[in-house]
């Protein structure tokens, strides 16, 4: 909200505070100052001057030497660079000693050898408006010699963020009241508008009917006849313009002024355009309404409207109607001042996407006690500015809603919550009284308070404690720290485990990515692991429509971005959440780790040739090393369009995740130079394999012996089949086997195309003794016999 210091100063004298002091005062009262703009000049040393004559500067093409009348009787010589004036113009003159906004001090001096005794100013130099490329030419009737700030008063504009609980601060009077409380400065009392001296008269049914008392508990109308609508006087226009409101006509300006002055939002109808009395009712379903902004709104039954006997004439508290608004030709007006319930206004404003200064105040709550005061102030202003005669009564329907009114404060509780055991009852009372609360009674540790009607936010004891905290500030509260032991929870273990994986991958040369969890529909085809993401109902753009069912799409986008930067050795991982739609409705969230790998196994360096590009076994190996459990790679029956070699990664009967090669067609789309491999792992499955402390296994006491075996097998016999054979061998001396060579010749020269040669090393050991050669030979031979029986293998002996 824009607040004018000069407007505020009509309520209390703030001259003893500097701007930074005021800014701090507001900030520490919980009103954030988002901007400060100084307008105009405070100094008297800028005066109106008249240009008598001017001539070309002898030494500078762009300068003129002016003789001006500054009101002193003696002509004054000024050198000036502007060109937009003529003799006889009235312009602002900064005399030597003047300090302009921004701290620019004016001195007597010479410009290119010619005396210049001051400076003629542009509007921008005086802090009132934009650069227009020349001097500010003032009205012809501006009196020469008059201080400029008498004609254009200096002002300071504060841009304030008023928190939603403090609707009472949405006016100059409200802020002045707060500043008075904080500074102890007296409010200029005659400007308390809350009370009205005009007699209230219960409105007759044909004049006002409230059919929705919950949404509108109180409605008042004042009829003023014979007004002459025209432009507002200068002071009123200036007030509104200073806080960024556009003057429209005197009546509309007055209602806006009253709103910004005291927070009561008003509306004026052209009485002659109303058909019959005012009806406050809920809109009919689908009822159409043409508002002041020129838009037609379709209303619903929970929108409150002000209607005449024919049609809605205003969306209550939000916006008036085009047809019944006050124009230059209006003669008779009906001035509305009412209290509308916040929730209804909020709902309507939200649904229609229509917000106004009025709805902003009503939806936060206005002071119900000032409804008639607002009407009264506006009436006075209308009569003095637009003339006419007001009915001597204000018609009132309904009543001001009841407020909480009283709160009891347990002062010990306040001390405890604030952590200020030494705070006295007197101190507490002084703070609350200063804020306008009235002490009804007080016992030893308890006091009863009457809440002023404008403080809708003070309803519970804790609300009063907040006020105390706000006033004393946290400097007054001693810092305290307690150490509380917290048991390690599942979340802690998961975090530590995940950090371990992250660090391990970073140490292996992988970069951690963090990609947005909301991805585009087009990215879904890059997902690994199956499963459907969760679509958002109201996405902001088609780039972010769905909560990702897989992290891989984000890593693919990351790869694409880096390829565009010329990088072709890609090592990325991301650890984070994915979202899966469940078949029976609802969703599941789980943590996953995704890895993307492409390009040379190591970065190129001065040493030797370009390293080999990684193959899929590189990624399998990386995962193997990361998980430190034997992984079984089980090829999937199908690949989705963007992948080849899609396989499940398993440890025993646990699914750890999936691995695949990006389809070359997809890789070409992102201009990948090398094959791209991806994997996605389930964090919970990885963790399952690493629970509990490791159990130590005795080291073998006797040496083992190895035997190699080479065999020829069909080219399509998977390694996993052979590994499975060895894994199931139960011979007491057999410890295990490892593959050490795989050879195939696709040309068919050294070996038939449909055959391959594989070689394994088998290890034998006994826990009791060093083995004899013959024992090992016997065991080896037994296993080879079984091998040839089980697998389509020919052992080379």
């Amino acid at each position: 909200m824009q607040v004018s210091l000069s407007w505020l100063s009509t309520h209390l004298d703030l001259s003893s505070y500097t701007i930074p002091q005021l800014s701090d005062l507001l900030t520490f009262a919980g009103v954030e100052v988002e901007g400060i703009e100084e307008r105009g000049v405070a100094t008297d040393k800028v005066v109106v001057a008249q240009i008598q004559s001017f001539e070309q500067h002898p030494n500078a093409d762009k300068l003129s030497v002016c003789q001006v009348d500054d009101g002193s009787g003696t002509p004054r010589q000024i050198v000036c660079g502007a060109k937009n004036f003529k003799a006889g113009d009235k312009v602002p003159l900064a005399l030597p000693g003047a300090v302009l906004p921004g701290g620019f001090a004016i001195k007597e001096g010479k410009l290119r050898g010619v005396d210049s005794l001051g400076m003629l100013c542009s509007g921008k130099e005086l802090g009132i408006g934009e650069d227009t490329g020349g001097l500010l030419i003032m009205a012809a009737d501006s009196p020469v010699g008059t201080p400029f700030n008498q004609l254009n008063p200096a002002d300071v504009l504060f841009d304030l963020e008023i928190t939603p609980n403090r609707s009472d601060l949405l006016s100059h009077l409200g802020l002045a009241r707060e500043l008075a409380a904080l500074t102890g400065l007296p409010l200029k009392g005659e400007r308390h508008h809350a009370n009205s001296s005009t007699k209230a008269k219960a409105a007759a049914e044909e004049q006002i009917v409230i059919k929705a008392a919950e949404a509108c508990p109180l409605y008042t109308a004042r009829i003023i006849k014979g007004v002459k609508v025209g432009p507002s006087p200068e002071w009123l226009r200036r007030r509104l313009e200073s806080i960024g409101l556009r003057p429209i006509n005197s009546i509309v300006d007055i209602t806006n002024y009253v709103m910004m002055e005291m927070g009561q939002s008003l509306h004026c109808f052209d009485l002659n355009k109303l058909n019959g009395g005012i009806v406050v009712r809920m809109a009919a379903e689908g009822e159409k309404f043409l508002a002041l902004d020129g838009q037609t709104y379709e209303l619903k039954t929970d929108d409150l409207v002000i209607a005449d006997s024919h049609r809605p004439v205003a969306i209550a508290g939000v916006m008036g109607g085009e047809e019944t608004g006050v124009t230059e030709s209006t003669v008779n007006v009906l001035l509305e001042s009412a209290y509308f319930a916040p929730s209804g206004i909020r709902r309507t404003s939200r649904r229609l996407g229509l917000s106004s200064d009025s709805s902003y105040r009503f939806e936060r709550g206005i002071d119900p006690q000032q409804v008639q005061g607002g009407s009264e102030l506006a009436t006075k202003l209308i009569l003095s500015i637009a003339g006419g005669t007001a009915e001597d009564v204000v018609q009132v329907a309904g009543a001001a809603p009841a407020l909480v009114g009283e709160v009891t404060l347990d002062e010990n509780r306040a001390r405890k919550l604030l952590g200020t055991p030494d705070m006295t009852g007197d101190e507490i009372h002084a703070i609350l009284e200063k804020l306008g609360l009235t002490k009804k009674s007080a016992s030893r540790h308890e006091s009863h308070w009457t809440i002023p009607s404008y403080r809708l936010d003070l309803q519970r004891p804790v609300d009063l404690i907040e006020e105390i905290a706000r006033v004393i500030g946290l400097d007054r509260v001693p810092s305290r720290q307690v150490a509380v032991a917290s048991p390690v929870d599942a979340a802690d273990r998961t975090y530590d485990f995940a950090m371990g994986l992250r660090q391990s991958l970073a140490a292996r040369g992988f970069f951690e990515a963090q990609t947005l969890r909301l991805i585009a529909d087009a990215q879904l085809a890059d997902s690994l692991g199956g499963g459907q993401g969760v679509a958002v109902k109201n996405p902001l753009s088609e780039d972010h429509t769905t909560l990702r069912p897989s992290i891989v799409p984000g890593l693919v986008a990351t790869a694409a971005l880096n390829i565009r930067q010329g990088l072709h050795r890609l090592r990325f991982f991301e650890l984070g959440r994915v979202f899966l739609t469940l078949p029976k409705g609802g969703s599941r969230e789980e943590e996953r780790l995704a890895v993307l790998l492409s390009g040379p196994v190591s970065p190129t360096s001065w040493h030797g040739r370009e390293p080999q590009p990684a193959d899929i076994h590189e990624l399998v190996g990386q995962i193997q090393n990361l998980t430190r459990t034997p992984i079984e790679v089980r090829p999937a029956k199908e690949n989705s369009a963007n992948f080849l070699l899609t396989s499940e990664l398993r440890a025993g009967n646990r699914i750890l995740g999936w691995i695949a090669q990006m389809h070359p067609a997809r890789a070409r789309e992102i201009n990948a130079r090398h094959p791209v491999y991806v994997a996605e792992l389930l964090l919970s499955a990885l963790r399952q394999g690493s629970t509990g402390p490791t159990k130590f296994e005795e080291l073998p006491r006797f040496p083992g012996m190895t035997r190699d075996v080479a065999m020829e097998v069909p080219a399509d016999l998977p390694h996993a089949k052979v590994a499975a054979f060895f894994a199931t061998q139960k011979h007491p001396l057999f410890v295990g086997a490892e593959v050490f060579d795989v050879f195939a010749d696709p040309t068919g020269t050294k070996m038939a195309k449909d055959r391959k040669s594989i070689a394994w090393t088998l290890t034998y050991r006994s826990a009791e003794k060093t083995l004899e050669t013959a024992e090992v030979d016997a065991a080896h031979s037994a296993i080879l016999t079984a091998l040839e029986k089980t697998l389509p293998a020919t052992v080379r002996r």
Partner: protein
Amino acid sequence: MLSELDSLKTAALAALDAAQDESALEAVRVNFLGKKGSVTALSQGMKDVPVEQKKEVGAKLNEVRTAITEGIDTKKLALQAAQDAKAVEGIDITLPGRPGAGVGALHPLTQIRDLAIRTLRRMGFALAEGPEIETEWHCFDALNTPADHPARNEKDTFYLPDGRLLRTHTSSVQIRTMEAAKALPIRIIAPGAAYRRDEIDATHLSVFNQLEGLYVNQDVSLGDLKGTLEYFFREIFGAGTAVRFRPHFFPFTEPSFEIDVKLEAKGKDARWIEIAGCGMVDPAVFTEVNKARGDTLFDPETTTGFAFGLGLDRLAMIMHGITDIRHLIENDVRFLQQFAA
């Protein structure tokens, strides 16, 4: 024989001197000390030496044999040393090291989150988590944010067709934690993603990262809040850092504050930078949690607590002087490798 031995010794030592490699050395050994070597041949003549000379000749023979053996050993060592020196000849040690698997890096957000978590864990906070797809109740109602609150609309919040939403803050984890709690105290932190329906630009992301904190017990005071967060921010930004608390408003805390820290920006005066929101848990939150639990573990008459929340993306930007928040989600390696620490 004695003179023969002397001349053999001289010849052997000369041959050793001339030997330039292992094989030449071995030839010398075979020529003099081998089975058919000249020293061996002479020693076989010992039996013909008269008894009175045997001692002298024997001693000479030993001396010659020892001299040659030692000569061979010495020469062997010298040859080895020369070879060893040659092995490193021509190596330019100033060349860059081999890259191995290369250098990776943790994302700066991970690093800052971990720093915050480690700091808060030292203060006895345990980790907690909750779903990112939340119910309106956990995200708003239970946090004292009424149904018609401005934040609760489809302009600012992402909704799912089934009425659930993407949590707008990690504060929903406060509720999740209190719902599931078995006893007091509760002292948790919850790092996590949150969502707001903002266009992505230099200072906004639609998905961002927060860190939530909650401490609930009997007699938790504003002093605890102040002490804890002052300590935290001084651990993060340095011991002397000025921290200030400005009164503010949040629906789920009362009183509420925003926290500023005073930081130097490069080439500028130190200024206050907004860094977090905090406050004492509003009793209405406890009441709502009790209703859901069906008990009074969080008796608003006796239970108090503080909560805080901070934006980790913003924290990372402030810490590292990152000028555009989009760097944090683009994962350009030129950006990431700056944080390889």
